[in-house]
């Protein structure tokens, strides 16, 4: 067989084989059988040595050309095979990206409206320079009543409205606090004792500016009362604060809380044992529609109670009521939450109905701030 025919035969055989190689391994086998040490092209190349110089002059380039040609084909086929393998893998890994997501990673839980409202109140009063004070739910009869100017024989101490605790080993008469007002006394009273627990606010020296949110209890349950509810109380004690400033604080708070530019309040003289003078405050509202609109209309809605801290209360805290004075106010957190967000019914607050929580609750990152807005 002539050298040319040999070269052509090898070219034909290997071209076909390379084209037919389905993976890198097969291709490599072909490469070795052609170009390896014992490969057929290598063998042909080795035969150059036994050729006559004249013959070698023409055969050399031909055989080397074949070697280069086959190497090129192997390289090209290898690249093609790699690309096809990647394509196949990518195809195998492809999913229908229109399939719905798993619910959990996108569905967050909800913050209860009471917590959200407390955070809103906190944001507003923090900006006015108030800090947050707290006391226990199980409160002494003394701080809940006596210190707040309910006299010893006062009917409230025996009344059905108060939840009394059974006597414990310390023999101290205790109640479930009927209001957040005992925290006032905890904050004001002159004492050098460290608070018994870390959540208890240490006693402060005037000037005092605190707000006191928390759970409160009354032995009362009907269409408009639940035995547990929430109040927030505010207290300012210094040597000059008066009702004119109380009006300002309440107006500013209500504007900020309801996120309205103006609010008209009506102050009515009233009575609370722990303030004197005492007032109840109505806010202007419109009740003509299906929802109450605060800050417009011609109707009034009771919203909070307030007054100058009673001289007896200041004295009970160990301060001189002729030197120190100040004001306090209180309101129902549940109530102002209902007014702002339109929950129709109080009992549902404490039922933990998932549907209610999902509807009236707030997203975890709806963080009430003044710079970002209280509500979205």
């Amino acid at each position, binding site marked *: 067989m002539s050298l040319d025919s040999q070269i052509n035969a090898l070219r034909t055989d290997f071209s076909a084989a390379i084209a037919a190689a389905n993976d890198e391994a097969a291709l490599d086998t072909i490469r070795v059988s052609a170009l390896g040490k014992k490969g057929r092209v290598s063998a042909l190349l080795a035969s150059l040595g036994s050729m006559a110089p004249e013959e070698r002059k023409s055969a050399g380039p031909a055989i080397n050309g074949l070697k280069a040609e086959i190497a090129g084909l192997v390289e090209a086929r290898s690249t093609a095979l790699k690309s096809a393998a990647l394509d196949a893998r990518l195809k195998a890994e492809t999913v229908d990206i229109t399939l*719905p997501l798993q619910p*959990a*990673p996108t*569905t*967050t839980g909800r913050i*209860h409206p009471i917590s959200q409202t407390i955070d809103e109140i*906190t944001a507003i009063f*923090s*900006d006015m320079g108030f*800090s*947050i004070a707290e006391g226990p*739910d*199980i409160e002494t009869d003394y701080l809940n009543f006596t210190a707040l100017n309910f006299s010893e024989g*006062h*009917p*409230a101490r025996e*009344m*059905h409205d108060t*939840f*009394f*605790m*059974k006597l*414990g080993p*310390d023999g101290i008469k205790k109640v479930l606090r009927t209001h957040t007002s005992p925290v006032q006394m905890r904050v004001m009273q002159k004492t050098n004792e460290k608070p*018994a*627990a*870390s*959540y208890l606010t240490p006693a402060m020296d005037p000037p005092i500016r605190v707000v006191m949110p928390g759970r409160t209890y009354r032995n009362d*349950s*009907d269409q*408009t009362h*639940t035995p547990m509810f929430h*109040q927030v109380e505010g207290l300012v004690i210094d040597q000059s604060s008066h009702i004119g*400033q109380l009006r*300002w604080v309440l107006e500013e708070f209500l504007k900020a809380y309801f996120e309205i530019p103006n609010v008209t309040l*009506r102050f009515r*003289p*009233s*009575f*609370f044992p722990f303030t*004197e003078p*005492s007032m*109840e*405050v109505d806010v202007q509202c419109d009740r003509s529609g299906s929802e*109450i609109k605060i800050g417009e209309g011609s109707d009034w809605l009771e919203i909070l*109670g307030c007054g*100058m801290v009673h001289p*007896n209360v200041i004295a009970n805290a160990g301060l001189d009521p002729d030197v120190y*004075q100040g004001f306090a106010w209180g309101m*129902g957190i549940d109530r102002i939450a*209902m*007014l702002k967000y339109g929950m*129709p019914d109080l009992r549902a607050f*404490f039922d933990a*109905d*998932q*549907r209610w*929580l999902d509807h009236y*609750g707030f997203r*975890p990152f709806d963080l009430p701030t003044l710079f970002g807005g209280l509500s979205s």
Partner: protein
Amino acid sequence: MSKLPSEFYGNIAHTHKAIDDARGFADVFVELIKISRALPPMIGGKPDFRQGAKHMKFTLDWLKEHLDTDASPAEIGDTLTLIGLELEGMEDQGKALSSFVTAHVVSAEQHPNADKLRVCKVDAGTGELIDVVCGAPNARTGLKTVFAAPGTYIPGKDMTIGKGNIRGQVSNGMLCSNAELELSKDHDGIIELPEDAPIGLPYSKFAGIDGVVFDISITPNRGDATGVYGIARDLAAYGLGTLKSTDMSPVPSKGKSPIAPLPQQFGADEPKTIRRFGGRYIKGVKNGPSPAWLQQRLRAVGLRPINAIVDITNWVSLGWGRPLHAYDADKIVGQPVLRNARNESLDALDNKIYTLDETMTVVADESGPLCLGGIMGGIRSSTTDETVNVFMECASWDPDLIARTGRKTGIVSDARYRLERHVDPALTDPGLELATRLVLELCGGEAIEPVISGDDVYANTVIEFPLSEVRRLTGLDVEPMIVTAILTKLGFEFAPKGDVFSVKVPSWRPDVMLKADLVEEVMRMIGVDNIPVEPLARLSHVAPRMLTTIQNRRRIARRALASRGLDEAVTWSFISHDEATRFGGGQEELQLANAIAADMTDTRPSLLPGLLAAARRNANRGAHDLGLFEVGQVFLSATPEGQHTYATGIRTGTAGITGAGRHWSGKAEKVGVFDAKADLAATLDALGVDIDKVHILAEPAPWSHPGRGGRIALGPKVTLGWFGELHPAWAAELDLTGPVAAFEIDLDALPEPRKKATKTKPALALSSLMPLSRDFAFVVDSAVSATVILRAARGADKALIKDVIIFDVFEGSHVGEGKKSVAIEVTIQPNDRTLTDEEIDAISASVVAAVTKSSGGVLRT
């Protein structure tokens, strides 16, 4: 029943002072639910007396009897609110009742198809007879009554009457009771008019109910405003007219009283409710219905006329705030006395029998109690139309003891309402004269000399009042002349001493004791709205930190848990005793002495019972896959330090972090211990606690599945929380089906962040060398916990081992019975130079040595 004298002491209208007094600030809260009326009454609920509690009704005419004024009803209404006598309602009764007409029942026959109904032919002056079916027992032929034509709104029923057919009989309208007209609570039958009443006249016109009725609420300190006279005094002080005086001068007596002054028979240690008792025998009266104008006046404010004597006592009670009681003198046996009850009972005017104890003062004769003093009279000695001789009582009582007796007996009467709020002691004797005068005017008879025992108590308060006090407390500058004018009109007397006034408080205002009380009097007459608004200056220009650590922790815990898909719940602070005990509480000091319901008796030792109950309720509504949490108080003792804030959460059904229910990627798995652990760990992480640095101990909480729960601790003493699957037996007893994963975190147990000198963080050293990893597998006893292996491996070379994770755990016969294989990957971070093979082998060897030593296992080969 309709003829029973349920007079004065017996008019059920108001409630007790105690409720009003205990009102906190936020009780305005009550008002709220004008928004919502749809709330069902709750278990163990009791009637709300507050509605009727502090209210006082009077007509414009009645007010004008005490106040000379041209002010319009609207002006009066607004002023009442501004001066602290809050207007709750103002109604033109004539308008409301103008559609009701007087009518004659021409015939009333038994309904053929209903025993209790009658078919009436009614003449309402329209010229034709109207068919009306009526169920009232007193609907009878010949009766004059009140008729509402179809289309009339019936206020007492909150409905509009239409044409109808009642059991086969046509009915074109309605015959009405006082309750249906909202004139009283009298449901006993349709209104009975005198036989000579005209027909077809608007009933408001006939009854003279054409005036404006004011309905105001009275704060508990204002006993003086429980009479129209006191209200008029306030309005006059405001400048809305002139107060008219009443003739209370002594009425001449004839003869000696057959009843001696009532002896007050009390031991030294006994509670004595009576102070001064005035009584007067009035001989030969002619009792019977009172004049129409008086009846109308009482009806207009919701009282039922009884007879002239009783109506007079009500008139004085409401008009001057001075309760009275009238006895039929002929029914008193022997000499009456004042003493405490001796386990006796009283047939009271509200037709109930009350058992009285030795703390309650009664007026008693030889046959026993006649009247529960200051609260309610008895039937035995009540006046009737036939009464000829009257013994009229006007007495003053200890307000606190009246309140106590009122509460004990539960009797709610007009007399108690006033007497427990304090009635002017200066009115005891004049009140008796006034009553006598009115009886003589309306019923005739002869007044015998008054008989009086005991002494009144006067506060006689004098306050040193610097005028600057008004400015100090309110910020309002008021002219001294205005201050004195206001206080004078309110009855205060002055002795000026420079800038300080000596102010004598009138007998009807015992609530005024201090300078601040006087400031309030001035303020309410000037109007709070006239006080200039003044900004409250900040104490510092940039606010310091406002929240404490625990307050921040609560906020963070809430948001962290919500971001993991759990909804925040707020559940009751009290639970049943059984549940409290089950969860480690139930101690005596944590029990309520007066629980409102059987399932709300104990303050909660854990938030889990409330959340599990919520899960049960939600499951009953079909929501079985649920994530809930609460951040709230638990009560470990009744001391302040025993009250901790917990963050507690549950997941039920398939409500894992990857979502609940069915999904194309595969069915969601049931929640388990690792869901709870993950929630707990994520929350601790959000709170700044590194979960890798706490102890995770296989010491499950009592509520937990014993093999699927653990405790998280910081050192031997501090427990941060628990996690686990709810014990199947507990779940069954709590009526929960399906798995529940739960965790509890004690937010108060978290360490306080250390106070550092600076906020600077430690320097960060970053290696430029590649980390490398080595895998090991150990065969250990099944009981060996993962923590043991992880800690040992980490501790093998603290300088170079950066991380250890477990990537495989399995048990099977080929690793041996009671054994398991645990595979770990150890990440080694070279610090300053590449490690040699020998060094890496040495680290590997120390890992193997440490793990095999601490776990008792062997390296798997």
